[in-house]
């Protein structure tokens, strides 16, 4: 092979691997992207039951119910709308009523959000950024949240 042909082989191989990578990414983007929604978004956008989303807001005070220890029910609110959530498992360390929360899962036919992941935030002063933005949008942002958010150390993103 001449130098030119060899270079063409190299370039061809490079482009084909790149094409495969792009195809894989496009395919994965179609299937595995999860949108963040506040309870109001869920009501407005009519999120289909079964679609995976992240639901974020505040855990409504007085809504937390533990059935037999492991099945947990609570409501997520942004001040305008509320969505009932069920979760089976152990809650993260700083899950509290009145605190920000992000749950990942899907709505069932009855409008109950079945969460399979509750994002653990390891610092009680920490407000998930999505939740803070959603609260600001719905006009329920309180100044003391901002003060808390301005504190120097934020929580873990797990």
């Amino acid at each position, binding site marked *: 092979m001449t130098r030119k042909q060899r270079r063409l082989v190299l370039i061809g191989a490079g482009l084909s691997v790149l094409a495969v*990578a792009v195809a894989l990414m496009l395919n994965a983007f179609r299937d595995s992207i999860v949108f963040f929604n506040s309870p109001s978004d869920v009501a407005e956008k009519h999120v289909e039951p079964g679609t995976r989303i992240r639901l974020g807001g505040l855990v409504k005070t007085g809504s937390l119910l533990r059935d037999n220890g492991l099945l947990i029910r609570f409501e997520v609110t942004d001040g305008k709308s509320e969505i009932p959530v069920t979760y089976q498992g152990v809650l993260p360390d700083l899950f509290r009523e009145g605190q920000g929360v992000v749950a990942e899962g899907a709505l069932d036919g009855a409008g109950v959000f079945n969460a399979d992941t509750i994002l653990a935030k390891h610092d009680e002063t*920490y407000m998930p950024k999505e939740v803070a933005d959603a609260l600001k949008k719905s006009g329920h942002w309180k100044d003391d949240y901002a003060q808390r*958010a301005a504190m120097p150390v934020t929580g873990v993103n797990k």
Partner: protein
Amino acid sequence: MIPELGHYALMLALGLALIQGIMPIVGARTNDPVLMNIATSTALAQFVFVAIAFGALTECYVFSDFSVLNVYENSNSAMPLIYRLTSVWGNHEGSMMLWVSILAFFGALVAFFGTNLPATLKADALAVQAWIAAAFYLFILATSNPFVRIPDAPFEGQDLNPILQDPGLAFHPPMLYLGYVGFSIAFSFAIAALLEGRIDAAWARWVRPWVLGAWMCLTIGIAGGSYWAYYELGWGGFWFWDPVENASLMPWLAGTALLHSAVVMEKRGALKVWTILLAILTFSLSLIGTFLVRSGVLTSVHAFATDPTRGIFILAILVAFIGGALALYAWRAPALKQGGLFAPISREGALVFNNLFLTSACATVFVGTLYPLALEALTGDKISVGPPFFNSTFGPLFIPLMLVMPFGPLLGWKRGDLLGAAQRLLTAAMLAAVAIAAAFALEHGGPVLAPFGVGIAVFVMAGAVTDIAERTMILRIPFGAALRRAIGLPRSAWGTAFAHFGIGVTLLGIVGATAWGGERIAAIKPGDTLDLAHYRLTFDGQFNRTGPNYRDVVGHFTVRRMSGELIGAMEPSRRTFPARNMATTEAALMTRGLSQIYLSLGDANPDGTVSVRLYFKPNVLMIWLGAVIMFFGGGLSLSDRRLRVGAPRPAKVRAALQAAE
């Protein structure tokens, strides 16, 4: 007094960096040896001053000087000494100090050991290194000064974020930074080569040890972070595809590609232009990692900075360095001379294959990590790109890489014999087939693809062994002769085999822990038992325990085999830190061979039960063991005679050192 001294030393370091960034370049252009030599002395002096600044900050932490704001916010006199030390870098300002300290350290190493470098190359490279350093000194002094005082010194500090109070943090951030910042050397040399418009195989020989060292540190740093997340966060996961983790994985992938392309350049003089680009990209990804982690665009345990000016400052550094480097590359790279020829089936071809897949895999991680940020900035839509995305893009790109990996070292340079390599790998392939069959027969319930994962891992490991077996001709010639051949093999050959073997070990651990692990989540009360895999755990009760700056609620569990034989006890706890009013979950781990039982304690429920999470993680330790093997392989390769001979120290320096002892 001490903090002011540190502050002053840092400003002097900035001044030195500015001199080092200008004079040597002028010297290299005008061929003035005096100006060029300034680089060596300023690089050494710069390191001295940064070390003084870092030492001053450390002193404030160790002796709990709460009149320094940074110490007050992140330390507490009740913390044990090790955490007072680690909290130096457990915050934004301190971690940037660590960053520049390591940068200056590497600059000093180049200045000290680079005595055989061509004068202009050394001057240019050190000047580029100084630009990076100057940018970060400015960043620290302007936006993140760790030496700011509080007028009325409080009596007690606010404590370090409890989840960072962990021995792992003594070692994970410095290793990671050694890796990130180590790639700056490759970057500086690449820019210097572009400035000179000349590059040869010797360039690769100078740069490769630095890349190798940085790669080793990054490997072990990532593995350490992963192990920390595994036991500290209480979820039993070892990798979350979290943006912060991806930020360290991207330079690792690009750095691994760079390591391999530099081999081709060193041995065959080919892939020069590509290697330069990879050197630029690898350090750029390190900078992007720093930006992602430190700017506050991502909220995570690592995002200490919440001040937007810092983010903008780092972004400006990022744009200047990456943009500038790529522009210089576009302008000067076409002038670099073409290298040697090779057939597609050859060692070079295999290494190109490696580079293509590693960089593509890196690109998918890059897109997956940055797409949500870009989308939010453009449309306001908030999305999360989680593990499914990475599993279905990164995974398929890594499989061919693993399959081809054993072939690489068996192919000859220039033109390889694919059929011959395949024949020599026949044993490895058969072993892999046996492993797949055994996995299907022995394990039930896991994903269908998991046994093939085991097969690939075994193929990679057996392939690494085959490489050594072929080189030593063991089993074909008398054992003594083979042993002599083994001793005579270049250490880099052993290094390659170990590193490749380590990848196989890690893969085996990942497959085992994710596919065949067991999980129980239950609400239990004292006296209850939990069965998982071959073990039975009895919950004996809870008790309280007090630590230096925390309180523990400890659950006591007795672990038995199903047969009733007693194995031991596990004591997971929930730990409360009064200084910050925070709680953490301290999981208990019991190691059984390479597998682990993982137990973490959840909330107490109103009905008197306690929620617990119990996992069985088969082969999970292999994940990190593999990284240790890779690190060891890198070390062997680094100690190779060729690299030492390639970069000899003049006898004079050695004599001077001895005299000083």
